[in-house]
């Protein structure tokens, strides 16, 4: 199992209230599998995804990525682990505004000291594959939304991760661009990667092999279905 989420819970507590954002959720994704988590706004999708990505420690329960519990690692090792195994795609793209397309794609390489030339070649290949070749020296501000998200996608793929975590990646895209991106995610899964896509978009869900419904932080078994 590439991603194993076992009974994780996360509660946000502040002065006024306690929110059970994710409550005892278990989920497993195998290599080559494309799983969508669908739910209304505030249902805990992003929280679940961050926990799966080693960015947010669950209050309870267990996460394993490729058999490794990222929260059992020291922060530096966890960062390293993330860099090597997980790619992220977000609704807001989260590109570094002053870096060019190529540099943004290359950013994860900073975390993994490797052969410079090799990474660069891979970055250029990804850029070409995502149709960004004539945009590679542009900064994000000069790109369209679709181009930005494709850049983010290329960045997610640079270190050849096993798992891609996508949080509402089509949220800021028009239909065509959304389809293109979802196609890339499907391709990644088809090539043996695991994809966890969280969204409330029905069209995005359509691409997934399996859909998990989240409601108030819990998996709604009643609407669980597979594509």
């Amino acid at each position, binding site marked *: 199992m590439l991603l194993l989420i076992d009974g994780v819970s996360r509660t946000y507590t502040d002065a006024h209230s306690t929110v059970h954002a994710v409550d005892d959720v278990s989920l497993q994704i195998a290599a080559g599998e494309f799983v969508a988590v669908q739910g209304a706004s505030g249902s805990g999708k*992003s*929280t679940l995804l*961050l926990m799966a*990505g080693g*960015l*947010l420690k669950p209050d309870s329960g267990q996460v394993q990525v490729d058999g490794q519990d990222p929260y059992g690692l020291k*922060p*530096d090792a966890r*960062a*390293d682990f*993330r*860099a*090597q195994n997980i790619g*992220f795609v*977000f*609704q*807001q793209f*989260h*590109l*570094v*505004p*002053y*870096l060019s397309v190529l*540099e943004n794609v*290359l*950013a*994860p*390489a*900073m*975390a*993994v000291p490797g052969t410079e030339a090799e990474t660069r070649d891979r970055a250029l290949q990804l850029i070409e594959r995502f149709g960004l070749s004539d945009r590679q020296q542009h900064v994000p501000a000069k790109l369209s939304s679709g181009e930005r998200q494709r850049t983010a996608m290329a*960045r997610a793929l640079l*270190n050849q991760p096993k798992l891609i975590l996508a*949080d*509402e990646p089509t*949220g800021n895209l028009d239909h065509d661009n959304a389809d293109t991106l979802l196609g890339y995610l499907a391709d990644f899964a088809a090539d043996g990667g695991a994809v966890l896509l969280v969204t409330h978009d029905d069209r995005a869900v359509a691409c997934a092999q399996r859909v998990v419904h989240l409601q108030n932080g819990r998996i709604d078994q009643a609407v669980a279905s597979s594509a």
Partner: protein
Amino acid sequence: MTVWRLAIREIRHRKLSFLMGVISVTTAVACLVGAKTLLRADRVITDHLMQAKQSEVETAIAAKEESVKQAGAELEDAMRKHMKGLGFNILILPEEQSRSEMLLNGMSATMPESYVDKLGQSKIVTINHLLPSVSQRVQWPEHDREVMLIGTRGEVPIQHRGLKKPLLEEVAEGKMVVGYEIQKELELKVGDTVTFREHDFTISEVHPERGSTDDVTVWINLGQAQEMLGMQNLINAILALECDCAGDRISAIRAEIEGILPGTQVVEKFSQALARAEARAKAKETAESALAREKESSQAMLVREEQGRQHLEQQHAGFAAVLVPLVLVGSAVTIFLLALTNARQRTEEIGILRAVGLQARQIILVFLSKAAAIGIMGGLLGIGLGYCVGWSLGGLSSNQLDWQLLFATGDLLTTIISAPILALALSGIASWLPALMAAQKDPAVVLQGG
């Protein structure tokens, strides 16, 4: 991609924030280097100034000393010249000699010749060169004219003093010294023989024109004159030379002589030579006191000048002592705030960089790289600016010597060399906390929105 490259890109993206950081560091370093340069320039200029003043003073004093020396030399020279021959300015006469009578008709009263020996054996100190003489206005029957006859014996030594070179040579027996008028009228020259009151004399010396009684005077040996005038063992006067012409010493001389030779009187002969000598003595005195005043006032001037410069230097140092730390702290705070703002601005990119695997220390490195860039640029600019400002405020000229003097002591160089280190430290320390805060940011919080 490297962390450094990332920092450079960010700097180019947010130029203003970088520029402000550089300006802060530049200001701090410029302030420090400028103050140091200015203080050092102060010292150099003070040294310059004091050296110049000192040599100015020395020249002035040397000139004054030279004039004092010259006045002294002139005085001595004048004394020597004018006293020679004409130098007897003290006349010791019998008490009963009337002065008006003497001036009208010459001397008439007499005193024993032994008086001069008594004086010579005494411990007298106020006078010198004793010369006994007889002096009478007499007829020169052979030439049918009147002359002033003076018989002299030669100087009587003052025993307790030892021998001195006489002012006047003794006129030997059978010899005659004649004044200018007589020589001219009788057409005499040295070596001629004349008959004077039935005695033959050879002319041994003729005096140049003196414009005084001397011009109509005939000098012969004292003994011969005494015999001729029937004044055996008697003299009319003792001529003497006052030891020191300056000041009013005549009363002292009178008192001393009265003690040794009661029944005599002392007359000070006015002579132009003496007046001139006195004027010269006065001139010497004036020159001496001018020298003393010059020394005193120039010393005071030097002290004042030095104090003035010291005051200025202290003012500058005091100002720098307040300004430099103030500006350093101000810059540190500015850089801190800039870095803090920068860290806030970069929340999103830091979040994503952390998410893709960058470690906390790499994030810190990104910030510190920027801080280093700010420090290096600000440091170098600050050194240049501070040096120029310090130089121009310090009022140094742009010649090689000033430059060398400025760096003569190592402390300015030390400051300049350590300034970039200070700039780096300033920028680094002020950016440290914001960098740490940025690195500690939880990427989850940043990324949750997506």
